[in-house]
């Protein structure tokens, strides 16, 4: 019936383009049987290009989503539901009684990717683990300075100071020797950044003198193998057929790079994308009305905050920081910026964390008292300051510019003249790293379930040195609390340290915690087996497409 009317229409019109149009329409009406690689292929529309194909070198969520869970495995994994550690490439592990020596037994017969540029001759063994971690720790390692010699996550947790030695005791037994006990060590091994590389591939690259290819032409043990990358266009992976776990369901996985939000949504509606990263919160209602699209949500481990450059006057005064924090109407922000899809934050830790301090007194919105505090600090007439608003949309802060404008109005009420500053994202981060800002609206997404992940990378002195401490805050008392928490494995004792640390933070106010946002993901309703991972990158190996 459909084709008949189509043909009739075609006959009526003779102009060339209309004939073409008609044939296209009949084509779209009857889809031919497609080959497996296309039919079972999955398209994930991502919001940006990856910076590298090696998770050791990056912290950006975009890159981690695109590479970590698809190409690599880690020694340990995090259970997405419970947040507990579970075996990954290491089938089991032992800790010595003093907490300084860890032994990991590796899974046997784990195959690396067989690609156009590398043919593995052996399965995974302890040498690969040693190679992976020595690259990070040893400056004389041939690959250490490849890609700049920066390992941001590992530097923020002081990996080189913590791990004394990694060695292969037996082909499938790795020994980690630490300088001091550290209760976040295992959690850090389970993050997306601790991906295991192939030592044999490294050797091949050394021989051929193409060291830089280790980060651009990846070889891992993950469920997909690398096929091609066209910058700003797409990343193409194929299924790793010898995967040691259950093989991935899609034969092909393509990351279609679509930075424009509206265009990404349009591609979801036309079914050019199966899964879409970061739908705009403002559009969620519209999306969820469609029958062919599902929206998933999960409380993610993140925090959006307003950090003060505590090394600069007047932000070096606690009273000024408290006054600023009190002057902000956070309820209005939650409505206008997060559209109610976030919970107000009372601490940097989300309430779902086991170390969350529920006894903290909630911060009040009180412009009068804020003004009084300012006067006490010696600024009865206020002052001028900059609010840096990040130019990109992130889960923890979907619209920093709008938030900054709201805060601008709030601050005006207590006599502070705030101007909003923004730069292109790379420049923005570089200038932040140089601490050129007065205050900044930014945030953090956790990489694992350990509370330490919210403290050390954000507010420790070592983070202030590497430039990732946005408050530029280095406080001995705070540092002592969080490092003591790491020395013990007893959870009760650790909790008490973290409770105290949170209490101390709310008094010192180096940053104002604003909100813990929910993470959203929109996908074609024919896709099964994709879940949001609250602790890191998305995993797409279990995704399958079937008509409901």
């Amino acid at each position: 019936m459909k084709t008949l009317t189509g043909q009739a229409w075609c006959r009526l019109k003779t102009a060339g383009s209309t004939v073409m149009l008609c044939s296209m329409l009949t084509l779209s009406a009857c889809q031919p049987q497609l080959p497996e690689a296309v039919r079972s292929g999955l398209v994930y529309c991502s919001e940006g290009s990856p910076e590298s194909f090696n998770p050791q070198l990056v912290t950006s969520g975009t890159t981690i989503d695109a590479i970590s869970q698809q190409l690599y495995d880690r020694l340990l994994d995090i259970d997405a539901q419970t947040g507990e550690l579970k075996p990954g490439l290491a089938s089991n592990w032992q800790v010595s009684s003093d907490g300084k020596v860890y032994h990991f037994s590796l899974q046997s017969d784990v195959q690396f990717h067989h690609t156009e540029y590398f043919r593995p001759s052996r399965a995974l063994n302890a040498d690969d683990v040693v190679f992976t971690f020595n690259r990070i720790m040893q400056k004389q390692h041939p690959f250490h300075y490849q890609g700049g010699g920066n390992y941001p996550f590992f530097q923020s947790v002081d990996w080189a100071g913590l791990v004394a030695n990694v060695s292969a005791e037996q082909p499938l037994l790795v020994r980690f020797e630490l300088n001091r006990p550290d209760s976040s060590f295992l959690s850090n091994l389970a993050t997306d950044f601790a991906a295991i590389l192939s030592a044999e591939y490294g050797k091949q690259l050394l021989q051929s003198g193409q060291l830089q290819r280790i980060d651009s032409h990846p070889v891992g043990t993950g469920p997909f193998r690398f096929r091609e990358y066209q910058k700003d266009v797409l990343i193409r992976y194929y299924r790793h057929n010898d995967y040691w776990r259950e093989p991935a369901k899609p034969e092909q996985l393509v990351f279609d790079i679509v930075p424009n939000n509206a265009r990404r949504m349009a591609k979801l509606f036309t079914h050019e994308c199966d899964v879409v990263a970061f739908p705009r919160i403002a559009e969620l209602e519209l999306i969820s009305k469609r029958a062919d699209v599902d929206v998933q949500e999960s409380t993610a481990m993140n925090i959006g905050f307003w950090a003060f450059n505590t090394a600069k006057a007047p932000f070096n005064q606690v009273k000024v920081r408290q006054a600023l924090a009190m002057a902000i109407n956070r309820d209005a922000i939650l409505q206008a910026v997060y559209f109610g899809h976030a919970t107000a934050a009372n601490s940097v830790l989300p309430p779902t964390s086991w170390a969350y301090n529920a006894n903290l007194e909630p911060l009040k919105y009180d412009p009068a008292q804020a003004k009084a505090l300012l006067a006490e600090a010696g600024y009865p007439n206020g002052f001028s300051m900059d609010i840096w608003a990040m130019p990109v949309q992130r889960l923890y802060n979907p619209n920093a510019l709008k938030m900054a404008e709201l805060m601008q109005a709030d601050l005006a009420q207590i006599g502070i003249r705030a101007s909003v500053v923004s730069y292109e994202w790379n420049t923005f981060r570089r200038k932040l790293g140089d601490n050129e800002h007065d205050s900044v609206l930014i945030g953090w997404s956790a990489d694992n379930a350990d509370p330490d992940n919210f403290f050390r990378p954000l507010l420790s002195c070592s983070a202030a040195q590497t430039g990732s401490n946005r408050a530029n805050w280095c406080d001995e008392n705070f540092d002592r609390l969080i490092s003591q928490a790491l020395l013990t494995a007893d959870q009760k004792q650790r909790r008490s340290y973290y409770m105290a640390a949170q209490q101390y933070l709310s008094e010192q106010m180096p940053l104002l915690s604003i909100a813990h946002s929910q993470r959203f993901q929109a996908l074609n309703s024919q896709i099964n087996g994709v879940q949001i991972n609250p602790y890191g990158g998305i995993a797409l190996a279990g995704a399958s497409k079937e008509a409901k």
Partner: protein
Amino acid sequence: MILYLLRRVFLLAFVFIALSILAFSLGYLFPGDPLQNFTGLRTISAEQLPLLIAEYRMDQGYIQQYLGYLQRIISGDWGLSFASQQLLLVEIKMLLPATLELAAYALLISFFVGIPLGIIAAIKPDGVLSKAISALALTGYSLPIFWWALLLIMVFSLWLGWLPTAGRIGVLYEIPYQTGFMLIDILLAQSQYQQEALFNALRHLLLPTLVLATFPTTVMIRFTRDSMLEVWEQSYIKTARAKGLSRSQVLYRHGLRNALLPVTRQIGLQFSTLITLAMITEVIFSWPGIGRWLIDSIYQRNFPAIQSGLLIISTLVITVNMLTEVLHTLFNPLARKR
């Protein structure tokens, strides 16, 4: 004729030299270190510096530097892109065919639709059909292309769901790069899903081509119509009619040939507009061509890419202009004598 061609070639060479001087001076006019702008290297180490200064003749006068630049351009060493740190010439080779493909199809449509419609409109200038075609042409001529493109996407992609919104082919089809022209590459690729891929690529091609063809088609309609009407008034047409030739004979033998001559020339003149419009079309349909790349480069302050992008596009436009001019002269004995 040979003298004419020589004159053209000479003019072309002169224009190229002027262009390359402009491109060269951009290396200095752009902000930042000229050496970085020329090499495309983001960071230059202390060991590299003296070698590069010698290679790029930065220690010599501007004229020497320019000659070195010219040599590099001719030998294919166009420097690196700031953004990707890949060879610019390689990137351009990957992208240019996509733009040419799009522009070529749009131009073809404008021929095969525009010229016949223009002739029809000229046959009975006061008829309803002629009026309708003229009205259509005027509408198409004044449509802002980005609005028109978005409208088509709204209707055919989002509302009806018939056509894809972006790209050259469904991303799940892997077509290895050979010529860069998608349809040819699909035919060359020995893949199992050749036919499906071809249809998929055609569906992707439809909307951008339609959008890009709109403007040149309307120009072609108006131009053909005016040119036909003018020729129709000539005394030799009246003579031919008076001698008893039929209407269609006159139209074909005497009218069309003479009326289409200025139309060939029009192609060359329209080409630069076409390329500009292709850039907008590429941005809207995420078409991975040179126009989108150039606009991205401007956003990213990718100076080496802007430099070579300008050079390649202006060279292209001027060459096409020149070629149509030569063609026009070949077909037109009057112009040859001049």
